[in-house]
């Protein structure tokens, strides 16, 4: 029972995250349309950070999904560790590129 709730919560959070990551992207594109593309690197990193996080979240979701038989031999802990690593790399690059 605890398992099912936790997975429910997870699914919820994940969809929230994806939704959250998508919203600023749209907002930003609109904003760029208004302001122009001057600090292009900031724009790019802003957009890509959102897209990247969303993509990585999707990847994680695919991997830890119990129904997905492709990843039987990949333990969820490993998947999460990979996810964290990937995110760290992503955000380091974003930080670098933002300024």
């Amino acid at each position, binding site marked *: 029972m605890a398992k099912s709730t936790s997975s429910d919560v997870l699914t919820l959070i994940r969809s929230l995250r994806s939704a959250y990551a998508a919203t600023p992207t749209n907002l930003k594109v609109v904003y760029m349309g208004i302001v122009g593309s001057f600090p*292009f*690197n900031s724009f*790019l*990193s802003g957009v*890509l950070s959102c*897209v*990247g996080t969303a*993509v*990585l979240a*999707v*990847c*994680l979701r*695919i*991997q830890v999904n119990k*129904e*997905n038989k*492709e*990843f039987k031999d*990949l333990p969820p802990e*490993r*998947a999460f*560790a*990979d*996810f964290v*690593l*990937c995110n760290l*790399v*992503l955000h380091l*690059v*974003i930080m*670098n*590129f933002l300024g």
Partner: protein
Amino acid sequence: MVAPVEPKPGGTLRNAFGGVLGFFILLLIGVLAFSIRLFSVIKYESVIHEFDPYFNYRVTQFLTKNGIYEFWNWFDDRTWYPLGRVIGGTVYPGLTLTAGTMWWILNSLNIPLSVETVCVFTAPVFSAFAAWATYFLTKEVKGIGSGLTAATLLALVPSYISRSVAGSYDNEAVAIFALIFTFFLYIKTLNTGSLFYATLNALSYFYMVCSWGGYTFIINLIPMHALLCIVTGRYSSRLYIAYAPLVVLGTLLAALVPVVGFNAVMTSEHFASFLVFIIIHVVAFVYFIKGILSPKMFKVAITLVLTVGIAVCIAVIAILVALVASSPTKGWSGRSLSLLDPTYASKYIPIIASVSEHQPPTWPSYFMDINILAFLVPAGIIACFLPLSDASSFVVLYLVTSVYFSGVMVRLMLVLAPAACILSGIALSEAFDVLTQSVKLQLVKLLEGPLSNSGDTKDENSTAQNDVLKADKQVATNNKTEDVKERPSKKNRKKDKENTEKAPVKSHNEKRLLALPLEASAIAIILLVVLGSLYVIHCVWAAAEAYSAPSIVLTSRSHDGLHVFDDFREAYAWLRHNTEVDDKVASWWDYGYQTTAMANRTVIVDNNTWNNTHIATVGTAMSSPEKSAWEIFNSLDVKYVLVVFGGLVGYPSDDINKFLWMVRIGGGVFPHIKEPDYLRDGQYRIDAQATPTMLNCLMYKLSYYRFVETDGKGFDRVRRTEIGKKHFKLSHFEEVFTTHHWMVRIYKLKPPKNRMKGKTKKPKHTSKPLSGARRDGSTKKNPWQ
């Protein structure tokens, strides 16, 4: 990696033994790859080769001296005078940083190697890495046996040797390793679906972007493969994990490299990846919905989504097309365009067409560069199709695209070489697999013996092979490679087949059915071995003879022994010691890098051909008569003009042979230079039939000035003819240095006359006392001879 993946209970020891053996073989392949590239150091000396490596060497020196931040901000005022060049922002830093790091590590380990030594040996070291990367890549595709074969082939392939001999310190040297490694990680991710490898993949892609402009090949090939998988209905979530993070992270990382910068999102070369990125999301979403909804609901949903989706897609594509079309070159850079349309460069950009390595290759060059691999590749393709997996389809796609690109530009043969090696490795390995398997079965039938016998037969086999090949070391490695392969490869293939949902038992049955007669297999094995040894012989010959000449020192063999032509270094040393630090030297752009690196003098143009107008200016000066050439050079503050002349010793790639390109490039910007003026009836000639424009242009005069004094006839050994105009004087230039074999000639611009003469005509009755005036004119001209 080498350790077997899942040992079967019976064969643990054998597998462990195989693993260790495989490891040693890999090590030997690395040593082989490294050592076969040392011919140039042994035969000549430890020098940097050719043109571009000199620039890389100079950049590396700067890096090691001033540190990475200075390097990043380096504004070089010694090239492209007076424009200068922002080196930090226009150079692919991968190679330089790699060598710089190696040097730094060695030095901090108290191994005091000079920067030059490190640079010279960077390429061989990385070719060993590349061989290992090939092994891993092929292992992912077809198993360890194929991996080892492919690695051996790659270690030896002449096409790659040509770019990575010791001293050839060029971007390609590390880029090929990065390319193969990126592909390996992509396939690894595809096979495992692990985000970890996806991250590594992105980082390795970053390294590739740092190293070479050829990274666009990756960023187009991988989307093509992803698209191919989607279209053929092989979409899986592993594909998503392999592809989507790579695009996001890879794009971000690529944008970090200064020379790429915003090009990573702005140019058409990268749009394919974004398009496929969108498509893969759509497809992923569709699959996701499919999983959630019932089939009926799914149908309804799909019609709904399709209508909306298509509308959105059309809008997006329209915007993209509008954006791209608004830029003049349609967003493509010149070199990429000439890849897509092979006639583009020759039509519009003579500067790209003028480089010999941008020409389409000829058939012999295919045979020269990849040798027997060309025949093995089709077999490899068939082997890849037998059980078609994502990985093997990727390799096939890689091969097909690289064959096309190598057909356009001879330089891209280098990209083809790994693909050819991988596929030939697979083919060879499969062939040996089948043949030895059938030999084994036949022997088992024949002897009714236990399984352990097969080991003996193999040993016999290998000794027999050794006899044939006279125990050549490389060949022995080759043989060993071929020997070990069958045991582990089976397992790996089985795993592969598991993925592609085939029963593992089936392969055993197949093997039995495929058993060939003993004699036939034995003969086939011997033939294959002979083929392999032919390849090895060819490769060694190519490494030793064809590709190890540094082109800065030349040798020639004649009846009276070996001649060494060290004229280039002689000339550069003369410049370094006899001219002022701030003097500007003009030459055709080929020699720009060498002049800055070896003579440390400012040049007008160099091999980084970023400013066509500037090069055209120099081309125009070279094709103009003396006076206007002097004016052009003087306006650029040029003090010395350097020409390369091969007529005396028969060095064919001299400036006279390149001259038509100077005319073309100059004429492309300054229309008063017309190519037909230099051609007699469409023929380029420098003999008595040559046009007056040709005989009066600066390049002719500087090349052939005083040439007639050498043999009295002025016979040019490159053009195999006597020159057209033999006795002439220079009015605006003076010869200051000519190297021993006349290969490099350096002229100085005369300063403007201190006085201006009156009427040019001499009083008719003054011939007697005026001898002094004439002496004034002629003795000053050659103070050197």
